[in-house]
């Protein structure tokens, strides 16, 4: 979290309420940690109340569910809140100004990283695409941004961190960025500007000069809370469904079944995971609890990562939205390049670990 600098000529009552907001926020975060540390006793207590024999399949499933659900929702809320504050310092317009005229290579790396922190919603994908390209951001750099923004997001990272551990969350972050950087760079090298829809090429608007809106510390905290309300409010049902599916896998699927069908010995499992993943449209919230359970049952990490990336990064609805600005040929190249990158990650992981 950033340390806010107070403006010197702030009226007295405003700085007083800033202090109030900041201290309430800090108190809430402390309370969060206290509650979080009590989750294991809480889930034991809750599961113990039910008339289920300890050690049975049902008991395992219920214990998994009552521990993971509050844990994941709490973790996600905290991460989304902090990310909401970070994002209040960025905007697509500012990101565009940073990326405009950047060389490929450096531009691709920068675009992928900015994709994580720039606020972006999929309904803005088309205006963002045109806004970037018409203001002089190279096509490949724009693609690096558009691949990273949905793939490496706070929901995916928060859930992976909470359910599977920080090592896999970090791995996902690095390889997600890697796929976005390399795929964007490759698309840039292919020089496919002519494959944009014609009307996009004719737009020569440049960038609007939008005056900065001054945000106070309180505004930023409010943006964090708004992000929690919006994102957690939208995905909690998927988390619960995902964890319920994960709980069923935990309790009932035999431990070696996944090792047999999604194990690393079978080379075709990675491409199969990507092909199955593309038409599946789920957000990170629904898919990651299932992924966690699959890993627990012996599925190979590379196969699971490839599946997760293709579900999140290559979605049919997004391609349909982008069809307004890209020709079918360009969408096919986009899906092909990103899919190849995901395949490479999957194979690499299965070979290394």
């Amino acid at each position, binding site marked *: 979290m950033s340390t806010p600098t107070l403006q010197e000529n702030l009226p007295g009552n405003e700085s007083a309420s800033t202090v109030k907001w900041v201290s309430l926020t800090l108190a809430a975060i402390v309370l969060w940690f206290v509650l979080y540390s009590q989750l294991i006793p809480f889930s034991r207590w809750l599961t113990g109340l039910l008339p289920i024999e300890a050690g049975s399949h049902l008991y395992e499933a219920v214990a998994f569910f009552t521990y993971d659900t509050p844990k994941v929702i709490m973790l996600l809320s905290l991460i989304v809140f902090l990310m909401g504050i970070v994002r209040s310092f960025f*905007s*697509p*317009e500012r*990101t*565009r100004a940073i990326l405009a005229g950047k060389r490929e290579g450096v531009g691709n790396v920068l675009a992928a990283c900015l994709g994580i922190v720039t*606020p*972006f*919603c999929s*309904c*803005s994908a*088309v*205006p*963002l695409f*045109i*806004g*970037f390209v*018409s*203001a002089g951001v190279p096509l490949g750099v724009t693609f690096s941004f558009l691949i990273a923004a949905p793939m490496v997001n706070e929901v995916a990272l928060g859930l992976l961190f909470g359910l599977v551990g920080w090592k896999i969350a970090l791995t996902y972050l690095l390889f997600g960025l890697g796929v976005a950087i390399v795929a964007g760079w490759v698309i840039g090298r292919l020089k496919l500007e002519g494959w944009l829809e014609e*009307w*996009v090429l004719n*737009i020569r*608007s*440049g*960038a*609007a*000069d*939008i*005056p900065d*809106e001054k945000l106070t510390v309180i*505004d930023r905290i409010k943006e964090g809370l708004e992000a929690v309300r919006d994102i957690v409010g939208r995905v909690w049902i998927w988390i619960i469904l995902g964890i319920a599916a994960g709980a069923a896998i935990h309790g009932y699927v035999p431990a070696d079944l996944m090792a047999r069908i999604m194990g690393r010995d079978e080379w075709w499992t990675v491409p199969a995971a990507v092909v199955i993943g593309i038409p599946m449209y789920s957000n990170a919230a629904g898919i990651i609890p299932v992924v966690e359970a699959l890993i627990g049952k012996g599925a190979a990490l590379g196969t699971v990562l490839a599946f997760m990336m293709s579900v999140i990064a290559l979605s049919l609805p997004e391609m349909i939205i982008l069809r*307004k*600005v890209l020709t079918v040929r360009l969408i096919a190249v986009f899906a092909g390049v990103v899919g190849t990158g995901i395949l490479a990650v999957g194979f690499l992981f299965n070979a290394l670990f």
Partner: protein
Amino acid sequence: MKNVKVLGPGCKRCDALVRMVEEEAAAANIPVAVEKVTDYAEIAQYGVASTPGLVIDGNVVHAGGLPKAENIRQWLAA
């Protein structure tokens, strides 16, 4: 009469911004003509990269997410 345009393909936030502008204008007694711009090509002409965007009398004053109500009031009064 202020000429207000809300740029956006028609997501929830774009509609919310239209309502906010109308409410603020009514509260401040400023006559406005609010127009929704949903065509991507036309949105692009304004040079914004995120929606909803807000254009008042031809000037882009805001892009991306919902602005604060008090800012809308200031822009309308300016």
